[in-house]
């Protein structure tokens, strides 16, 4: 079947999609967007997290056909091509929250969504928002630091305005 959807603001079309295929597979293998990672394929690890119509979901659990005519934002859509890395991405680098990097795209999408809805999160807010993303390298402390750093920087920017 053919699936037409918007990804990171661009209209995409994929042909010969198998009906049981996931949105994650379409993104990675058919649209050339390998940022969203395929790890558990059962919604446990969050590495494939994308925004579907502005709501974070595991793209491995969305059937490709369910994404027809819908709006998807992947980790590739976070950075601004003009200004470079998104503040969340820069904060992850600066805080040392990236080790092997496999979980990072999902954590970035989840963190980006958290800070959109809750610009100054408490530690409990952060833990709750990232509870669906597993990382086997960092022990999470640097990731929590990164989210706090991103929130603090956006607070400073807001204060300067």
């Amino acid at each position, binding site marked *: 079947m053919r699936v037409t959807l918007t990804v990171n603001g661009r209209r995409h079309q994929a042909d010969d999609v198998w009906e049981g295929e996931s949105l994650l597979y379409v993104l990675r293998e058919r649209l050339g967007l390998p940022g969203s990672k395929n790890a558990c394929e059962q919604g446990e690890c969050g590495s494939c997290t994308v925004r579907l119509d502005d709501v974070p979901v595991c793209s491995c*659990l969305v*059937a490709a056909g369910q994404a027809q005519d819908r709006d998807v934002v992947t980790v590739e859509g976070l950075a601004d091509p003009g200004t470079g890395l998104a503040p969340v991405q820069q904060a992850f680098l600066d805080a040392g929250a990236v080790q092997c990097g496999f979980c990072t795209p999902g954590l970035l999408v989840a963190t980006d969504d958290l800070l959109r809805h809750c610009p100054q999160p408490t530690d409990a807010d952060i833990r*709750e928002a990232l509870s669906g993303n597993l990382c086997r390298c960092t022990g999470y402390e640097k990731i929590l630091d990164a989210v706090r750093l991103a929130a603090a920087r956006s607070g400073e920017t807001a204060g300067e305005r």
Partner: protein
Amino acid sequence: MDFLRPASWQEALAAKAEYPTAVPIAGGTDLMVEINFDHRRPDALLDLNRITELREWETGRQTVRLGASVPYSRIMEHLRAELPGLAQAAHTVASPQIRNRGGVGGNLGTASPAGDAHPALLASGARIEAVSVRGTRMIDVDDFYLGVKRNALAPDELIRAVHLPKATGPQAFAKVGTRNAMVIAVCAFGLALHPDRRTVRTGIGSAAPTPVRARVAEDFLTAALADGGHWDSGRPPAPSVAAEFARLVAGAANPIDDVRGTAAYRRHALGVLARRTLGWTWQAYREQDRSPACA
């Protein structure tokens, strides 16, 4: 495999009548796992995402009609006052990503004994609105679960909504797992106080082939609360009453040994959850529903 994308509820019912083996997919949080691992290869998927009314709810005077696909995250945000037990259970479902997709209709359709919504549905006395081209029938939640992953739906039926009585008293849900997020229940328990009728109802999850009520425990506690005048006095039931309630709840379970826990552990833990949820709900009853000055 076919992928059916009905644009309306009527189209969905027609498609389910024409292709009774088509498997409905809404949040996909159970079904896509099975497809990804090639444990299941349905003839057809019936996508319900285009049917907007499944994601809506109506709050009536006494009942909430909850669309089958209302995501758990919306239940947590918007229905905590009306459906506190279900809202608490919703909060324990997996992770934010899963709660943004999954809903009660899927839990009922899958009918896993470990589904997090079931104890709250049993404790509140929910009814399931099952619809086909032949018409609509309301299935009492007590009659819905038939076996492990088997339910009372006919092959041509879809779940339109779940009708839940608005809470008239405190409700609680508690679940045992190896961590606080992203965990399938080792066992779970829901308790609802119904002060309007001076009864209590319960629901046990993950500790029998189906979700079940602990009816003997309910009858015991209902009688003990009446005999002791507790609904009027607000005094908490005696520790011996709570202990007997816990013992009867544990006895109502019919658990197995599996990778998540032993039968003995599940029984023990259910007793603990029963005692705790009784303590929490009774404390809330005293604080919310009674004047603090009347003692």
